[in-house]
């Protein structure tokens, strides 16, 4: 059975991303949930399933059972947490799809809320280090960006990309963020700024790594028929694909990029569309080379070199050939952990509904959103459209 066009996103919610010490993770989650229900035209009582994930911040958020039903004043049939790192939200979309299509849920609320912005940076970095094997990686100073850097280093060593091409991704994202009132950083930056910002871990410069932020996001998913009744223009899920490549970087049998390709092929096949049909690409990219490898693995560019040159020439920037990461992405909108992953789907939906304000792409029909977990351990692709 194909899932193509059978479920839809009826609503979405988000809030300003950045450092907001006065907001708790629960408050953020309630705020975006209510916005998602409002944009879906649903009363809270109509929700019968809530999928949440970890906040890493507040104990009641991470340990409370049935907390969100209680917070938004409804009693669901089903509420539980899911975790697959930055791709948790994409995994939640897959589970929600299955629950809806099998008749086990009608209206599913997906919510993520995180507090990496006001948490002490050391604590956030320390949490991320837990992604690494406690016997074979952490004792050797491995951490999230470092492990990613180990893989990205090879693209530079073997001359696939230049530092300028890589830096241009941060510059392009910042141009989009300038038009996103919810983005954390909106002031223009130049390639020189990026290349002079120092290395977090070679080859990743400070301005090529994401600012850690507080943020939250929510989605409402329901059947295509329900969505059509609820909102004028539902955004249909046309296809979804995923791949898990490795857990520890030393054990990778296939690269993160090969994992992206598998997820992309999977999603395109289900959706029955190809790279040429994509009007907006909402690409999960904590680091510029992530954007470049996604552009290649999604079939949007031929190879890393061409992808880098295309970004350097503004191909993905405002006014370019294909709008890429139109909310500013992790690099400028801010990395709010799992909710930061969900925001790529939120942005694709917002663009397809024509509600993206100053950064609205003209009449998009089909958009894609991607997500990754850990250090490229998992890759997910969703293809969304306004026609089922």
């Amino acid at each position: 059975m194909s899932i193509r066009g059978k479920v839809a996103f009826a609503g979405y919610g988000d809030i300003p991303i950045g450092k907001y010490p006065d907001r708790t993770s629960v408050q953020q989650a309630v705020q975006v949930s209510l916005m998602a229900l409002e944009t879906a035209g649903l009363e809270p009582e109509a929700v019968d399933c809530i999928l949440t994930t970890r906040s890493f911040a507040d104990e009641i958020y991470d340990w409370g059972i049935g907390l969100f039903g209680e917070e938004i004043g409804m009693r669901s049939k089903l509420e539980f947490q899911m975790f697959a790192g930055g791709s948790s939200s994409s995994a939640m979309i897959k589970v929600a799809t299955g629950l809806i299509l099998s008749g086990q849920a009608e209206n599913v609320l997906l919510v993520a809320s995180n507090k990496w912005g006001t948490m002490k940076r050391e604590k956030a970095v320390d949490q991320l280090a837990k992604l690494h094997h406690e016997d074979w990686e952490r004792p050797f100073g491995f951490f999230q960006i470092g492990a990613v850097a180990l893989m990205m280093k090879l693209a530079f060593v073997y001359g696939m990309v230049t530092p300028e091409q890589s830096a241009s991704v941060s510059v392009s994202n910042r141009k989009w963020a300038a038009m996103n009132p919810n983005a954390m950083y909106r002031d223009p930056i130049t390639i020189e700024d990026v290349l002079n910002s120092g290395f977090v871990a070679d080859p990743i410069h400070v301005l090529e790594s994401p600012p850690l932020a507080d943020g939250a996001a929510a989605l409402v998913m329901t059947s295509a028929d329900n969505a059509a009744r609820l909102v004028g223009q539902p955004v249909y899920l046309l296809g979804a694909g995923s791949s898990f490549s490795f857990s520890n970087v030393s054990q990778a049998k296939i690269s993160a990029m090969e994992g992206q390709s598998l997820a992309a092929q999977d999603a395109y096949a289900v959706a029955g569309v190809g790279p040429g049909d994509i009007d907006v690409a909402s690409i999960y990219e904590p680091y510029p080379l992530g954007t470049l490898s996604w552009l290649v693995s999604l079939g949007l560019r031929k190879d890393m070199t061409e992808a880098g040159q295309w970004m350097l020439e503004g191909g993905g920037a405002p006014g370019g050939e294909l709008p890429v990461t139109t909310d500013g992405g992790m690099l400028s909108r801010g990395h709010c952990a799992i909710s930061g992953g969900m925001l790529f789907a939120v942005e694709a939906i917002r663009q397809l509904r024509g509600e993206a304000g100053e950064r609205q792409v003209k009449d998009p029909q089909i958009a894609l959103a991607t997500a990754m977990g850990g250090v490229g351990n998992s890759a997910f692709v969703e293809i969304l459209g306004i026609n089922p």
Partner: protein
Amino acid sequence: MTYTKPLPKIRPYTKEFWDAAGRGELLVQHCDDCDRNIFYPREVCPKCKGRNLRYIKASGRGKLFTFSLVEKGAPPDFKEDQPYVICLVDLDEGVRIGSMLVGYEDYWALKPGAEVEVVFHPVTAEISLPKFKPAGSDFTFPELQA
């Protein structure tokens, strides 16, 4: 001074590895069911699911697969070590190991494929961490103070 960084846990199936490391020997696992080498150590062969795993002595030599100079992003426990180099090494035994590279002269002259060899870093009475240095380097870590 007490070592405060993350330490590997000694498990029933890794005690032999850490005991050998304390003697300056690098071990890798070998699966007698499918005749393959395995790293990191585990209880079931990830290839053939066999359980007849034993440790063999590795040469301690290999080639750099990749590496990264950590300047600003280290986790809290490793802040004081910055800048340091993390690496993946392809051992001559055909397995890949994550570690730290030490004893190099010019980071920017390093290339993937460079020959490296293990050098043990004794950090506690039980744990000596296998780190790597360019082949032929005379770099050594100080012995533990009793």
